[in-house]
């Protein structure tokens, strides 16, 4: 028998025998509060918030780790349990920088929420030594403030287990325990890939993106600047969450309206640049396949993945597509072709990227990312940052009318839109590659085998005379596993799509933070991805090479995919980075 009968708060129920108490309680809609628990990634029983009473046991047990057993009687809300949870919270608060009024996570902080739930009204119940840590702001993409850290170790788990990077973890022991890099080096000096997954799992304000909203406010207020904004494919699928809309809401129109109201001179779509990327990348793929170039070709749109490759798999650098990411292609086009068309000096154009991603903050500073002699993109903001700007500006997001992107750089296809989900780049590329090989304009557009939230997906497609073997991985632990197989020769592919974050950009490190009690029991990625696939179907043009602006751009400017000008403007280079 796979089920056991237990009682929770006197209520009998049958649950699977391998469930934890926490999971079992959830089946009858009892939410046991947690702090350190992240399903499947961090089940370590460290914070002790989720303790419950089990009949016959002397001590309270952590429900996130304790398995159910036949006949077990569990009590989740007794006075003893509540008192214990309250004491745990009071103890955490006794060594926590209580800057709640203006903390970046205020109102979205799991500790704050629990203190409110459990009526922790005396934050000084336990007084004693409090740590004063210095900020680690050495990395370009994020800031760490250990004085707000509650040592839930979720960041450590995300970094090590989800991403196979493992550059942060506990140092010292006992009361002196603190999260840091090995030997307390700065994050900027270690092989961090900037993915930001540690941020989205942090329950408090201890880790957050480097806030770069001020330079954007400044630019918007500068009459000499032509400030334009591009929004990455996945932003429309997530930004609504920051304004209380249900997960999986398509907020494209309101997002555009809000950005316009913030004062941007052009509200454009990175989807357009994604279409450009596909045309260039498909061309690169065909070139390598036909001319015997380095295979498999691996996508390069995810800067977290690119940095991971440079640090941990330098032997695959030759395999990386030389195409700039869509964000960078957009900037390059904006400051060359668009500038020329609008008669603007590229120096006066200020390009803001709204990205699902913290690694994009790093990406804009890479070498070979300045087509017009100035950086292609000036500031990359995360979904969270732009949401804060919209809120500060008093824009009632949910009540805005739906508006459309500006032209010409707002013109995009369904192929560009699905870039935001794992498998999307692959599918978009296949749509164009098939056309390029077969010349068949009526070929099918749906490549469903590369869709979905599995960590690694594989498919083979018969295209014309050849069979194209492809693989898709998202999340660096999955990428690591896939690359090991490729390296050992176990697997051979023509084309691989890798996204640094599990599920792709919709689950990026710059996306709105969903508290653990939500994310543990919701398939965030799938809900958000559905927005993009629905948008794809709704589009009349679904292949990148059919994007009229793309066509026009080649006619007017780049001549043809892979031309020397395209290479100069739209392609980049990589370098080996230290592992330690």
């Amino acid at each position, binding site marked *: 028998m796979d089920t056991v009968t237990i009682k929770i708060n006197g209520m009998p129920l049958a649950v699977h025998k391998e469930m934890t108490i926490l999971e079992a309680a959830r089946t009858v809609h009892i939410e046991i509060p947690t702090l350190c628990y992240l399903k499947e990634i961090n089940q370590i*029983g*460290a*914070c*002790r918030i989720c303790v419950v009473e089990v009949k016959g046991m002397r001590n309270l047990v952590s429900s996130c780790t*304790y398995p159910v057993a036949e006949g077990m009687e569990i009590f989740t809300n007794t006075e003893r349990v509540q008192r214990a949870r309250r004491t745990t919270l009071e103890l*955490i608060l006794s060594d926590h920088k209580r800057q709640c009024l203006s903390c970046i996570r205020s109102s979205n902080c799991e500790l704050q929420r629990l203190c409110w739930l459990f009526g922790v009204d005396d934050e000084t119940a336990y007084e004693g*030594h409090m740590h004063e840590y210095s900020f680690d702001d050495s990395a370009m993409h994020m800031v760490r403030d250990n004085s707000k850290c509650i*040592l839930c170790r979720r960041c450590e788990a995300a970094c090590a287990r989800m991403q196979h990077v493992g550059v942060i973890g506990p140092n010292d022991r*006992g009361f002196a*325990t603190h999260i840091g890099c090995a030997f307390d080096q700065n994050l900027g000096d270690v092989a961090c890939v900037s993915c930001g997954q540690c941020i989205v799992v942090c329950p408090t304000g201890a880790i957050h993106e480097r806030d770069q909203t001020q330079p954007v406010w400044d630019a918007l207020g500068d009459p000499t600047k032509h400030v334009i904004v591009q929004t990455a494919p996945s932003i429309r699928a997530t930004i609504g969450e920051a304004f209380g809309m249900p997960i999986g809401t398509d907020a494209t129109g309101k997002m555009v309206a809000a950005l316009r109201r913030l004062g941007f001179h052009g509200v454009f779509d990175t989807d357009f640049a994604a279409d450009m990327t596909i045309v260039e990348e498909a061309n690169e793929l065909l070139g390598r396949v036909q001319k015997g170039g380095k295979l498999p070709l691996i996508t390069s749109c995810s800067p977290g993945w690119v940095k991971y490759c440079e640090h941990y798999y330098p032997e695959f650098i030759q395999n990386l597509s030389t195409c700039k990411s869509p964000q960078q292609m957009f900037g390059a086009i904006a400051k060359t072709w668009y500038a020329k068309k609008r008669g603007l000096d590229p120096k006066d154009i200020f390009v803001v990227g709204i990205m699902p991603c913290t690694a994009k903050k790093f990406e804009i500073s890479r070498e070979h990312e300045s087509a017009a002699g100035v950086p292609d993109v000036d500031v990359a903001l995360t979904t969270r940052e732009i949401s804060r700007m919209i809120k500060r500006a008093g824009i009632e997001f949910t009540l805005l009318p739906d508006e459309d992107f500006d032209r010409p750089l707002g013109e995009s296809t369904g192929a560009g839109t699905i870039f935001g989900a794992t498998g999307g780049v692959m599918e978009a590329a296949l749509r164009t590659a098939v056309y390029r090989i077969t010349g068949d304009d009526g070929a099918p557009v749906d490549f469903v085998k590369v869709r979905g939230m599995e960590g690694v997906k594989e498919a083979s497609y018969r295209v014309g005379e050849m069979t194209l073997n492809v693989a898709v991985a998202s999340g660096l632990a999955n990428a690591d596993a896939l690359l090991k197989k490729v390296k050992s020769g176990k697997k051979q592919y023509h084309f691989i799509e890798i996204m640094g974050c599990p599920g792709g950009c919709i689950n990026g490190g710059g996306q709105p933070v969903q508290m653990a009690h939500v994310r543990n029991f919701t398939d965030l990625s799938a809900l958000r991805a559905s927005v993009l696939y629905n948008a794809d179907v709704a589009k009349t043009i679904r292949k990148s090479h059919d994007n009229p602006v793309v066509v026009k751009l080649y006619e007017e400017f780049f001549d043809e995919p892979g031309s020397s000008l395209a290479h100069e403007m739209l392609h980049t280079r990589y370098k080996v980075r230290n592992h330690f």
Partner: protein
Amino acid sequence: MIRSHVLVCGGTGCTSSRSLALIDAMEREVASAGLSGEVKVVKTGCFGLCALGPIMIVYPEGTFYSMVKEEDVPEIVSEHLLRGRPVTRLVYGETLLPDGEVASLDDTGFYKKQMRVALRNCGRIDPEDITEYIAFDGYQALAKALTRMTPGEVIDVVKASGLRGRGGAGFPTGLKWSFAAAQPPGEKYVCCNADEGDPGAFMDRSILEGDPHALLEAMAIAGYAVGANRGYIYVRAEYPIAVKRLQIAIGQARDMGLLGEDIFGTGFSFDIETRLGAGAFVCGEETALIRSIEGHRGEPRPRPPFPAVSGIFGKPTVQNNVETYANVPRIILLGAEWFSAIGTEKSKGTKVFALGGHITNTGLVEVPMGTTLREIVEEIGGGIPHGKKFKAAQTGGPSGGCIPAEHLDIPIDYDNLTAIGSMMGSGGLIVLDEDSCMVDMARYYLDFTVDESCGKCTPCRIGTRRLLEMVERITGGNGKSGDIERMEELCRYIRENALCGLGQSAPNPVLSTIRYFRDEYEAHIHEKRCPAHVCKSMLAYKIIAEKCIGCTLCARVCPAGAIAGELKKPHVIDPEKCVKCGACYEKCRQGAIVKE
């Protein structure tokens, strides 16, 4: 023919008092006296009476010499070894009879009530020579288990013996083995917890240093019983002698085919590796130890699953401590009935205690379970020095509690100790005399656990720290009314909520001192007074003018220049300048300086 064996302790205690130089000197002197063919010098493990080291026993007479120095060696050789005249000035006083004869060590107070099972070979054999172990029935138990018993029978014998874990919690060893044996066949491990960390406890170290093969033999037996072919010994790197001897022992056992493939031709294979720990107290917790063996940060994880189901690298693992294993060969060889005849109803066999603190005979003692604390302190331990009164004994190290004088006659076993608020722990037994402050003692142990907390769970990481701060406020003279109750509440919270046994037991020293010495806490809090005059914040040194003869000794030793006075006239201590170091108090010959 070798007619005399000179055993010199090569344990850590005696080594630190230069016993190795003694061995060299003895070998040189024996050679120059032309006795090389007649006298053998043997480096052994610990004899137990560490306070009197370096220790030397001369056989066949069995003469017990203590505190032997290198310069004593020529005399021992020419007088004792050659002429048969024991050097009485070096003979352990308790064995020296009024007529000048030397009595057997077994008749002394220290040894009389002892019963050596786990320590049976310590101090008796050369731990670096497997043949000496074999001479004393070494590996016979393994041979018996492998050739005459089924794995199930081995487990049944261990179960029937009543052996319980000697590492702290006292879980029945046979039951633990049966859990691992019940797991489906496949990779399994036998693990030895040799990460002895309780301050003052060193029985495991003694066994590792004095009888390493007993451990190897027991682990191989355990491997056979549960179906494991590989063993790990997790030993702290601060035990260099133990590590070296273990490695020598493993090498010798492999050379003789007592470890390795097809042992005793039975097809059973077993090998052992050592893993060195960096000395974190928490790595003595079984799941943290496993994490450390695996190469991770040593942190406990919640149980279940228990190591018997999912241990090292996720495989079923039997983990016992050194002393537990050391009992196993005797149990297999002499039978469960022999072992279970020793001890009390629920605690069988013997227990080794590391006797320390305010006691005459500091060292290692092994007594049958059920021996009273009074027997250990007054008879074996030789009582409390300087005629002071017994106040309490701390058992179980930082996880244990104190036992006050009213419980001196309680027979010591697992359950009795738990019932009176202490615990067996690994067997540290620190005796405290009347001059000890129990609040300060609680502070000391708590300071240790706070320092050694791994920092993983909130109750231990922050809770114990806040508890320590409360105790420190009290010893610092800043206690407030209600503090005791607040501490009790926090203690209960930590005990019920901490992740691992170390955190759960961390409040024990505080709880047990509150239980038995609440009046001392109250004196500190309400009267700002430390009754034992230990807590510096509440301590003042004063000179009784009537007793002071004005010798100026105190003024001269005072490091702070706090004592003033003219020659032959009463001196005075300036409390503002006094740093309370106690130097004057120690120095005054008139008893004119008092603590208040």
